[in-house]
């Protein structure tokens, strides 16, 4: 079939017009921010001028020496120790210590490595895995009991796992007196769950997780989810008559947050 030059030319013109229209729309979206206030922008310009001439007076230290005022036997304030910043970069801990203890509770496998002590810190690698799970896992209520105290304050660093399905973290517990004996420690995690969804994806994640656990089929519960002032807002649309609103809400919360009750309790090896 012969195609005339005229027809080709007209086709190209049509295509060009389409792209021009789309391009104009795209440019408009880029240059028209939504929900802004002139006042906030003016405030921020002033702030930039101030910030450029100011240096913060407190800089975190990476020193591995004990804090200046601490003496052997003194209790260490976990909060104040936290303000010294993470010491992971200067610690002698290996980049990844293979977990050597594991427990399975409610189908969730948690493993931990030997605990490395340095300064007022205790470093441990902790890995979590849930059979058949596709969601990213996250730690729950977690603490170390040691002779004379407990610490539930820690820095969180991502770590490489051995298995593709597991999530591993290097946890840097703080506030442990340097003369604490290295025997009879206990590490406890009371529950674990799904990682918080990235900003703006909460509702889609919640609905996906509810569907994966067959929430309606198993429990007779349905809900809607909307983003309100940046936070996901859940509204129950269907529930069994025998279930109170608060009970249904609790079931939904546990489902969309992936809560798995433990505890996983370890008597770790220290070095």
């Amino acid at each position, binding site marked *: 079939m012969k195609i005339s030059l005229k027809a080709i030319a*007209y086709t190209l*013109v*049509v*295509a060009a*017009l*389409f*792209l*021009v*229209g*789309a391009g104009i*729309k*795209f440019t408009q*979206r*880029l240059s028209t*921010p*939504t*929900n*802004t*206030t002139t006042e*906030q*922008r003016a*405030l921020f310009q002033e*702030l*930039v001028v101030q*910030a450029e001439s*100011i240096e*913060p*007076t*407190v800089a975190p230290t990476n020193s591995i020496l004990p804090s200046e005022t601490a003496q052997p036997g003194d209790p260490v304030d*976990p909060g*104040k120790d*936290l*303000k010294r910043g993470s010491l992971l970069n200067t610690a002698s801990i290996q980049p990844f210590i293979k977990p050597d203890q594991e427990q399975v509770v409610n189908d969730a496998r948690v493993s931990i490595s030997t605990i490395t002590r340095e300064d007022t810190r205790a470093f441990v690698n902790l890995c979590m895995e849930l059979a058949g799970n596709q969601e990213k896992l*996250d*730690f*729950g*209520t*977690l603490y170390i009991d040691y002779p004379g105290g407990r610490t*539930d*304050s*820690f*820095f*969180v*660093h991502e770590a490489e796992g051995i298995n593709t399905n597991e999530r591993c973290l290097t946890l840097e517990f703080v506030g442990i007196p340097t003369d604490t004996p290295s025997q009879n420690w206990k590490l406890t995690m009371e*529950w674990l*769950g799904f990682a*918080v969804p*990235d*900003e*703006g*994806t909460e509702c889609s994640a919640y609905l996906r997780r509810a569907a994966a656990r067959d929430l309606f089929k198993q429990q007779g519960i349905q809900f809607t989810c909307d*983003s309100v*002032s*940046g*936070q996901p807002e859940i509204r129950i649309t269907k529930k069994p008559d025998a279930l109170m609103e608060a009970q249904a809400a*609790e079931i939904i*919360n546990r489902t969309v*947050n*992936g*809560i798995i009750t433990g505890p996983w309790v370890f008597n770790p090896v220290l070095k």
Partner: protein
Amino acid sequence: MLCVFRLIGCLAFLTGYLLPSTSVFAAMCSGNSCTGLFADSTCTASAGSTAFTIYSAYVEPRQSTVCMAQWTRVTNKASSARWTAGSTRYGGLYYNSYHQSVQSSGEIATNQAVYTPMVGNDGGVGVISAVGCGEVNTSQMMLPIGSTRPDLSVYCSDAW
């Protein structure tokens, strides 16, 4: 024939103009215009300075190079529901001049999070040094988190 092509051309232009742009191509805001807004998925968030847990509050400094903004996410890691609040503090000698803060409207479930409005700058992420602060409690808290000296507060991160 010419009329047909002209009609098609007009329709093509209008179609291209009226079709919604996908979020892949345009962030919700950029730099200064992000200040005070809550980040959405177009901002493609990543970690800021080192996250930490303090008294059951998991505090994560967050940032977006796409939106050129910083904010803080705070997750309730207690075993039961808690009031949960966060502040992104910036400006002044001790980061105490300005803040973007949020608090849950009541107790929120374990493993749920709140995140503060953004602090943006046309120069990019980290041009304005900020600290991210967070706390969970059994009762409503006063904002901003981190009190009068966020640089020293145990509830606040390192600057980033």
